[in-house]
């Protein structure tokens, strides 16, 4: 089985490797590039912990071969904060609103939420819940994750965040 040379742009930097076609994208990111933010949770396309952004789509990198991403633009959680360490609005939202406990799902949640906010900058709570329905969290009950995403949406829109009446 012939190996193949692949190249892609990951978090703005070029990445190249000679890979077996069967190498999964999540293994390429974690093992070849050392980007261990994307997590392997269920390994069966259910949990979303491995979610990364690829050419404008949120994808579960456990269910894609690295070779399918040849030539693609990929972003992982490592590419979210600014070069000076300033957190992205979503990262800040998860911190401020206690959107995580163990943190295992968080990189996938944030990458999914990032794409959701590109497509729908002012999502309703229901739209957020539907938009992150491919990401499982076993700690929080989602309440504070939804709040964190609403916080980020408000910050990115330049309007004050208002907690919904509960």
């Amino acid at each position, binding site marked *: 089985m012939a190996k193949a040379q692949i190249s892609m742009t990951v978090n703005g930097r070029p990445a190249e490797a000679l890979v*077996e076609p*069967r190498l*999964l994208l999540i293994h390429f990111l974690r093992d070849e590039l050392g980007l261990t933010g994307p997590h392997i949770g269920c390994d069966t396309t259910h949990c979303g912990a491995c979610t990364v952004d690829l050419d404008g789509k*949120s994808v*579960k990198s456990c269910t894609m071969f690295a070779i399918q991403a040849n030539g693609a633009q990929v972003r992982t959680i490592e590419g979210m904060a600014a070069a000076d360490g300033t957190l992205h609005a979503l990262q800040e939202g998860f911190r401020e609103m206690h959107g995580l406990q163990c943190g295992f799902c968080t990189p996938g949640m944030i990458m999914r939420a990032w794409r959701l906010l590109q497509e729908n900058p002012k999502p309703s709570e229901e739209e957020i819940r539907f938009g992150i*329905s491919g990401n499982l969290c076993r700690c929080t009950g989602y309440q504070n994750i939804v709040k964190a995403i609403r916080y980020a949406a408000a910050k990115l829109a330049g309007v004050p965040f208002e907690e919904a009446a509960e």
Partner: protein
Amino acid sequence: MIPGAFDYHRPSSVADAVALLARLGADARVLAGGHSLIPMMKLRLATPQHLVDLAGVSELRGVRADGANIVIGAMTTQHEVIGSDLLSAKIPILRETALQIADPQVRYCGTIGGNVANGDPGNDMPAVMMCLGATYEVRGPSGTRQIAARSYYQGTFVTALKADEIVTAIRIPAPAVGHGHAYEKLKRKIGDYATAAAAVVLTMSGGKVASCSIGLTNVADQPLWAEEAGKIVVGSSLDAATIKKAVAAAEAITDPASDTRGPAAYRTKVAGVMVARALARARQNAKA
């Protein structure tokens, strides 16, 4: 989980893809969105020696009107189906159904061609295509042929498609303007296959049903077209007695497995409930 080793091929045209399949033989599989095949490869339930990735074949993408038909390229993703203004205007049941498939990440990758072609009775689009009277356009070494959705499915992962053929497009006669439609799906959670689901497309005239077609998902080893149930409601005002008869006719053709989604008898009943709900909602959103 690590899939078995394979060689990867990325043709840029349907002609090249078909030639590759002919040359590589039975050890080759077509890769579309990969969200059925890759999980099966990770479990080693599928161990193809060659993958022919259709991602680079641009002629397989896109949605267009062709006279009274709508043609959807096989590599059009569920996400693109949801976002298509043409489909939302002409065949809104497709958007409604696509939104009930899996989750957002899967819908960015999963294709409508893969969903209808692979013969998984849990997939949602096949019953909808049978309901709509769609035709699959297929290309093989000896040329192009058409297979009606209603005669495509033969059993679990068994279809009328030959190993050296590719489904290239889905051709759907656009339902009449003002038609009613609904896809009712009971599932345990987002991302799950249906316990049972029903697709209904109907037209109304003067308060009576003028035409009706019903499809059923995941209540047999293949998707079902409930022809008799559809016929029963034509001419009626969808009164309770008629709906009861149609539900009984739909239930009668089911043959579900008993599995984690419930015992067979329960799933048959759920199919009936889905038919009743889909008929009621389609009646409601029909204009006439």
